[in-house]
């Protein structure tokens, strides 16, 4: 199987080179045989990488410890689903996973794209194949997952306990899917630039791909937060770690693109900016990979330091030079078809929204790279951690939240004063009412109150948009409210799906705000002893240490510390936090394979999480050291993720839900005519 895997990698590499050379050279023009050869090469790469992946999976499942990768990340007593997910647990396997998924996306782009874009597809094939060939070359020349050991060990080292979590099976694939699928919009953008077909065709071709990519990234990032929260035991979910930042960067620029592309579709503006955003987003996804895999910046999430970083750095520079040079050479072809007319217009709101997204992306990138810059300039190593990022980004984030509510309320082209008054009254009232209620309830954290008031404002905006849409349908079509709501969303999936995504985002912000009210206490308790902790809602929790029990599970010895919970004197059951000592068997003896890991006990509801960490025993007895935390509103973040996913799925649901072709909608009368007496009529 090792030989077959190697052969498959080489086949994919050579096919990738062929496809890239033929595709970029343009020799396929007027040569249907070469055009179909390029397409078939894309499918061939995919088939080869499927074979390579099957070989690695087979080696993992059959515990073929002659492979260094299998030995390094699995053991015989590792549960099967972790054995399967070990495919992407390490550097080498994750590179193969990346190449495999990209080749699947590349094949899907060839198979599913409309024939209207036939002139773009060979270039798309060239770009995707070049990227796949790069990843395969990294495997072949620096990090080969089929590398053999000089001898075959009886057992493997096992998987890091922190990776033995259900999050491991879904978080990395989701994040990779997000990172990887960015290549498809980038490939279409390059294809449009190379073919000089710079009308809105390429924008329509990538619409679904950009949303798919954005959804995967969003879900991947949220799952990463969830995993950090439930597995790492620090009571938080975002630490502004370089690798976390690296995943956020392309998400920010992609989100900016999803907004600004609407201006290009409707008004033919921002063509250069949109292409720049797509190229930049691709660059940032490769930059994130470079950060994660090079070890150039210290991170708790990094793979082990290796020389693959140089490959990624070289690729990053080449891809950036290629993309931006291409954009520069086509600059004159990207003249806008219209101009912005007013700062009080939706276009202007979207521009400011883009400014903030890109501004936050810049500040995150700046903070991530600042230690390197500082060392270069001053020769002094520094750390740039959460205090820096919070200070710089929280104000920008709050401005962005405000714009989330403002943008949809402003008319396209130019909004009148009467229009603004009519649109803003209820959302502003909603925001003010939220602030007043919170103040009356005793909240005095002004940052948190501002965030929640802005969330109320955005909620008001979304509610008023749905209300007006439903009311219009009821008046025009005489429909009942549920039918009107359903058809409103079904006929305008992109718009109302987008509003649902905005609701998801505001729910995230509400969840983030909860961290301002975190309560925490460390305690050492003997069995029967208890402590009390008061929640921000005024409840008093009593935690009573019951005792520590030890037992053996499949590949670990578990020390389970149990705590009895009572809220305001009323029993609420027990919670158990664990220490897990993983082991492998050597010569019939259990040998610890890693340092003991901690399993947090979490009890969630809409208001707050109880979060208990068993730090360890005192002198080998049942006297236990605990950290008790009350985390308000954390559940809202996971709930926001579901809402965001739901909204995202609506926006990308097949068909546009309208009998009107999108191009016709772009030129409908409402955008081209200023109505006489429009102000008076309202």
């Amino acid at each position: 199987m090792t030989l077959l895997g190697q052969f498959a990698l080489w086949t994919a590499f050579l096919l990738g080179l062929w496809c890239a050379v033929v595709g970029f050279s343009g020799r396929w023009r007027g040569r249907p045989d070469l055009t179909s050869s390029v397409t078939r090469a894309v499918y061939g790469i995919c088939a080869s990488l499927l074979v390579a992946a099957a070989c690695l999976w087979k080696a993992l499942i059959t515990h073929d410890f002659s492979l260094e990768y299998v030995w390094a990340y699995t053991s015989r007593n590792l549960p099967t689903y972790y054995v399967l997910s070990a495919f992407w647990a390490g550097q080498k396997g994750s590179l193969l996973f990346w190449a495999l998924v990209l080749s699947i996306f590349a094949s899907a782009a060839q198979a599913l794209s409309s024939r209207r874009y036939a002139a773009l597809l060979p270039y798309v094939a060239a770009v995707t194949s070049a990227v796949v060939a790069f990843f395969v070359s990294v495997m072949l020349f620096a990090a080969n997952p089929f590398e053999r050991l000089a001898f075959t060990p009886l057992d493997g080292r096992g998987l890091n306990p922190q990776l033995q979590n259900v999050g491991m099976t879904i978080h990395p694939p989701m994040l990779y899917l997000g990172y990887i699928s960015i290549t498809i919009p980038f490939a279409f953008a390059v294809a449009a630039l190379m073919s000089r077909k710079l009308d809105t065709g390429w924008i329509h071709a990538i619409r679904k791909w950009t949303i798919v990519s954005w959804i995967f990234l969003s879900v991947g990032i949220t799952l990463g937060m969830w995993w950090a929260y439930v597995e790492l035991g620090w009571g938080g979910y975002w630490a502004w770690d370089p690798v976390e930042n690296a995943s956020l960067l392309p998400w920010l620029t992609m989100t900016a693109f999803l907004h600004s592309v609407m201006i290009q579709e409707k008004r033919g503006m921002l063509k250069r900016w949109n292409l720049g955003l797509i190229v930049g987003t691709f660059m940032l996804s490769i930059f994130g990979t470079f950060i994660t895999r090079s070890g150039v910046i210290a991170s708790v999430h990094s793979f082990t330091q290796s020389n693959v970083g140089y490959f990624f750095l070289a690729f990053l520079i080449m891809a950036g030079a290629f993309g931006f040079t291409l954009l520069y050479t086509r600059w004159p072809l990207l003249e806008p078809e219209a101009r912005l007319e007013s700062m009080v217009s939706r276009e202007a709101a979207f521009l400011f929204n883009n400014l903030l997204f890109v501004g936050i992306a810049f500040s995150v990138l700046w903070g991530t790279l600042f230690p390197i810059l500082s060392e270069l300039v001053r020769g002094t190593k520094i750390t740039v951690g959460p205090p820096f990022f919070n200070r710089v980004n929280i104000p920008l984030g709050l401005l962005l939240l405000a714009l989330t509510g403002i943008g949809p309320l402003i008319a396209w082209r130019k909004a009148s004063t009467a229009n603004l008054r009519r649109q803003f009254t209820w959302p502003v009232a909603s925001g003010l009412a939220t602030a007043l209620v919170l103040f009356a309830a005793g909240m005095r954290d002004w940052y948190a109150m501002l965030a929640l008031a802005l969330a109320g404002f955005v909620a008001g905006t979304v509610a008023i948009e749905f209300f007006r849409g439903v009311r219009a349908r009821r008046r025009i079509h005489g429909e009942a409210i549920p039918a009107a709501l359903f058809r409103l969303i079904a006929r305008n999936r992109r718009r109302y799906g987008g509003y649902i995504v905005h609701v998801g985002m505001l729910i995230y912000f509400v969840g983030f705000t909860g961290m301002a009210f975190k309560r925490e206490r460390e305690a050492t308790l003997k069995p029967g002893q208890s402590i009390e902790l008061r929640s921000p809602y005024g409840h008093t929790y009593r935690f009573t240490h019951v005792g520590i029990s030890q037992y053996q599970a499949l590949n670990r010895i578990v020390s389970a510390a149990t705590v009895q919970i009572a809220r305001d004197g009323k029993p609420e059951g027990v919670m158990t936090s664990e220490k897990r000592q993983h082991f492998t068997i050597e010569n019939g003896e259990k040998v610890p394979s890693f340092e003991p890991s901690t399993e947090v006990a979490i009890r969630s509801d809409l208001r707050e999480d109880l979060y208990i960490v068993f730090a360890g025993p005192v002198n080998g007895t049942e006297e236990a050291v605990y950290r008790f935390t009350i985390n308000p509103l954390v559940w809202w973040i996971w709930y926001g993720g579901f809402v965001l996913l739901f909204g995202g799925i609506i926006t990308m649901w097949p068909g546009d839900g309208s009998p009107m072709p999108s191009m016709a909608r772009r030129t409908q009368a409402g955008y081209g005519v200023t109505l006489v007496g429009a102000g008076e009529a309202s």
Partner: protein
Amino acid sequence: MTPADRTTRRRFLIVAGGALLGAARLGAAQQPGTLPGSGTTGALGDPGAAGRSQAPTTDRDNDLAIQAIEKRLRCTCGCTLDVYTCRTTDFTCTYSPQLHREVLQLRESGMSGQQIVDAFVAKYGEQALMAPEPHGVNLAGYLVPGTLVTAAGAVMLWILSRRRVRTTAELAPVAVDATPAELEQLRQALAESED
């Protein structure tokens, strides 16, 4: 009964017996007398499996002022976390408990929070901080993102305000022969269909 059935039953008995023996061993090793409220503290059967032995916590561990100082200081174990988060999360770390003790000692000697932070910088260098102090070159680190965003926003506003003056004259209202009621109906239809 087939030989295969007998084999299966034998295997089941072996596994069940092994499990009972294992449970008995763990039970025997664990001391009794650990019921809630009894106050007695039994010894663990396998203390090594329960993680590093912890020092009992004190009131000072929960002192918010101490925690605030430790959240500004970076643990030197290479974890990239602050001292407080590391010592209350990575219970295998030996650096953060030591740094915690240093903070407590400096506090006992009468130092303020800033003086303790300064003492750490003097001892471990600037990388002892979770974020650089906003002085000198580091000030640029704090100011550059906000300044650039503000400057870009100001330029956009300036360009848009100039453009507004130029285009207002171009946008002469188009005469539409419609009643206010018809206009309202058109507006609602647009509100429903507009992306």
